[in-house]
């Protein structure tokens, strides 16, 4: 017998093992006979059941709902509350809940429980923790929120995922969340934190029956893996594609790509109290040195993402098309700095009163494109004589150093839809001299006053005027320097149609999807 013959049985072993690995491991994931399962992949992990931590995954998968919804620009729409009104003194808000809304366990949503959920959310980090709320009470179909001062942004905050309504049975006696029992079209049937969850159409869903009746969500942390999943067609919807994957998909199968500009902007945060940056002309000079078109084209792979102002045109309320666009003009930048007394030294770096124009740029590592953008900025600012030392660090460094007052420059990707209405986030960032992700030591008071007036509530015409004034002042004063906008992309499989992106990233809109083919369950 040859040595090969000795291992004939081993070959069978290998084949059997491969077959086992290919076929036998993992769940099939298919639903009952005939039921098709939609597969969704995105970056975000359902690491906890608590709405304050992973609530956004449950609202996006349409398991849980909030009292208020938001349209594509973040403006409030009715949700679990059918309508709301402000009292005459503007210190209390009355919300009317939709009648007969049932949670996935059959229990009914009422005002008393809604008040309990919101009071619990208020005591934790989240949208409500900083709101001027005095008390939340409810009974029957009514919910009353009393304020310490007028606050028109309240409905926007009630659209935040940390305020999502979960059933009484979701909570343990100590207030911790033991199950996610929501009111959305889909009920959670299984969760494997932090990786995956499965949902099925709730028998208590009050709306039209969607075509997709079962879905599973898989969190894929690495952008490379998401791109490969999109390329292989393993998932029906793949969110959070990186720039390279988006570019390839747009080139090869544009019909499978859905894109939308989001209210997220790459900004250069700066200390407006720093001796080198306190004069607005110095900040304008830095802005004039930035080649946004090339950064957007080369790094974000989309030249249209170069930021001409803080908000993209898709956020129409906060975008003023009449404003002169931020642009590149290194000669003008050098002239402005010369006006301020800066003169180039032998190595080309500017010097004034023996001080070099050298700044430290902090870059968080949470977004892979940011260190690359930082490197481009370093080179572009060097061309006008400003030396930048890049420090790539922890995600939490920017708010920490901002708070300590030791931040010079930082690069961030700020989401202005964090609290749905961009006005709420801007109020955090630019009121009272600045916030952790906004202005720092910026003495401008007009913007703060306008933001306060907006938050307190004004009529629509006055609101539009105030927003225009805020956007204009931010463009003139440059307490942060906008660099580029963001576009989020979604890869859609050939099995489904009707996919769209929510720019506010509140929902994956599974209930709007249609199956294209009549293929059996996978």
């Amino acid at each position, binding site marked *: *017998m040859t040595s090969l013959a000795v291992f004939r049985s081993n070959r069978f072993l290998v084949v059997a*093992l491969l077959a086992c*690995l290919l076929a036998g491991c993992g769940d099939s*994931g298919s639903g009952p006979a005939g039921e098709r399962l939609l597969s969704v992949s995105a970056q975000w992990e359902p690491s906890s059941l608590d709405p304050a931590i992973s609530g956004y995954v449950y609202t996006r998968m349409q398991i849980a709902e909030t009292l208020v919804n938001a349209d594509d620009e973040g403006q409030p729409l009715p949700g679990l509350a059918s309508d709301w009104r402000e009292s005459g003194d503007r210190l209390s808000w009355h919300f009317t809940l939709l009648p007969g809304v049932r949670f996935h366990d059959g229990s009914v949503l009422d005002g008393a429980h809604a008040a309990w959920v919101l009071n619990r959310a208020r005591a934790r*980090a989240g949208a409500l923790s900083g709101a001027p709320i005095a008390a939340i009470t409810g009974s029957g179909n009514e919910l009353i929120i009393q304020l310490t001062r007028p606050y028109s942004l309240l409905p926007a905050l009630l659209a935040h995922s940390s305020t999502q309504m979960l059933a009484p049975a979701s909570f343990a006696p100590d207030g911790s969340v033991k199950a996610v029992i929501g009111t959305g079209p889909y009920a959670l049937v299984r969760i494997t934190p932090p990786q995956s969850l499965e949902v099925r159409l709730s028998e208590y869903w009050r709306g039209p029956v969607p075509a997709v009746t079962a879905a599973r969500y898989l969190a*894929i942390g690495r952008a490379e893996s998401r791109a490969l999943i999109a390329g292989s067609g393993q998932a029906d919807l793949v969110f959070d594609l990186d720039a390279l994957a988006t570019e390839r998909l747009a080139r090869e199968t544009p019909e499978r790509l859905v894109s939308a500009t989001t209210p997220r902007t790459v900004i250069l945060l700066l200390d407006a109290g720093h001796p080198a940056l306190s004069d607005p002309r110095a900040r304008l000079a830095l802005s004039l040195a930035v080649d946004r078109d090339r950064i957007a084209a080369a790094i974000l792979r989309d030249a249209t993402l170069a930021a001409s102002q803080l908000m993209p045109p898709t956020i129409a309320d906060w975008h003023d098309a009449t404003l002169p666009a931020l642009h590149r003009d290194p000669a003008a930048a050098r002239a402005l700095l010369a006006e301020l007394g800066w003169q180039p030294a032998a190595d080309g770096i500017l010097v004034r009163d023996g001080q070099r124009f050298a700044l430290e740029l902090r870059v968080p590592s949470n977004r892979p494109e940011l260190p690359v953008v930082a490197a481009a900025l370093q080179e572009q600012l060097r061309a006008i004589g400003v030396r930048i030392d890049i420090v790539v660090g*922890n*995600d939490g460094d920017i*708010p920490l150093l901002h708070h300590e007052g030791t931040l010079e420059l930082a690069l961030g990707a700020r989401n202005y839809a964090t609290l749905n209405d961009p006005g709420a986030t801007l109020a*955090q960032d630019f009121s009272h001299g600045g916030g952790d992700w906004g202005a720092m030591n910026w003495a401008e008071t007009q913007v703060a006053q306008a933001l306060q007036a907006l938050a307190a509530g004004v009529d629509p015409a006055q609101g539009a005027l105030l927003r225009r004034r805020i956007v204009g002042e931010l463009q003139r004063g440059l307490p942060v320097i906008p660099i580029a906008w963001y576009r989020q992309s979604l890869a859609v499989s050939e099995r489904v149609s009707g996919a769209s992106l929510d720019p506010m990233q509140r929902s994956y809109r599974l209930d709007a999807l249609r199956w294209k083919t009549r293929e059996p369950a996978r």
Partner: protein
Amino acid sequence: MKRIGLLLATRLAQALFLALGISTLCFFLLRALPGDVAFRIAASRYGLDMVTTAAAEAVRAELNLDLPALRALGHWWVALLRFDLGVSAITGRAVWTELAQQLGHTVQLAVAAVALALAISAPLGVRAGLNPGGRLDTALLAGALLLRAIPPFLLGLLLIIAFALILPLAPAAGHLEQGTLFLPALTLALGLSAPLARIVRDAMAQVSSTPYYAFSRTKGLSEAATFWRHGLRNIAVPVLAYLATQLVFLIEGVVVIETLFAWPGIGHALIHALFGRDVPMIQGVVLVMSLGIVLFNALVDLVCLLLDPRERTV
């Protein structure tokens, strides 16, 4: 039996010292990391967009992060003696609960990888060992060098491209669908089987050149019978001993591969805990991994003792 008892007692003592030593070292390493823990944890809990100084201070107060280092270490030791690993700073779930869930996935992946590595390397190594210097032997050497030189992350990506994109045979990532174990297990197995095939080959070459192997042929046993009776057991001892040393490679690979393939195991959890500065989770994972190495080594020693009667009589 006396030798087995001695072996187990030694390993138990090792495990105890390791548990205390590793967790203490880990504790100080985590304290030495730059950045503010409260801000890191707040970013991981609520997302970077929601991190404010107020949120970070709330986390600091809730988790008692201002406790002096030595007092915090004391608390950790006392908790460890009670087998209490604490609660994850990010998810709020008990570390034991998290680990129990994740360890099952990792063991599944590791067992599949080792089985696949043995299935690939044993037949190839034996064939090459029976004909040292032959074409298969040379090809095996080149293949082993190449596979060992490719980082697991790159190998994983190449395999996804080959088996999920070009030949759609298996899912690219995840853990829910049929066949999702195949690519991560194959990635780990190829890395493991490269040196393993060389070990098998050397052991086979050495055994096949011994007088007892030649005598078994001379007395009329077939090639297969000679191998099964006199070859397999002699080859198994060095192969198993080598596998024990490769556990570190397996753990390193698991950390990388689980992240690439979105496999919800302990390596994936470690990466997330490190990014989120989830100290209880990191200490729990490191403890379980280091105790796992001791346990695996003890098991390999036991199996070697059972396989090799010479060891039992020393």
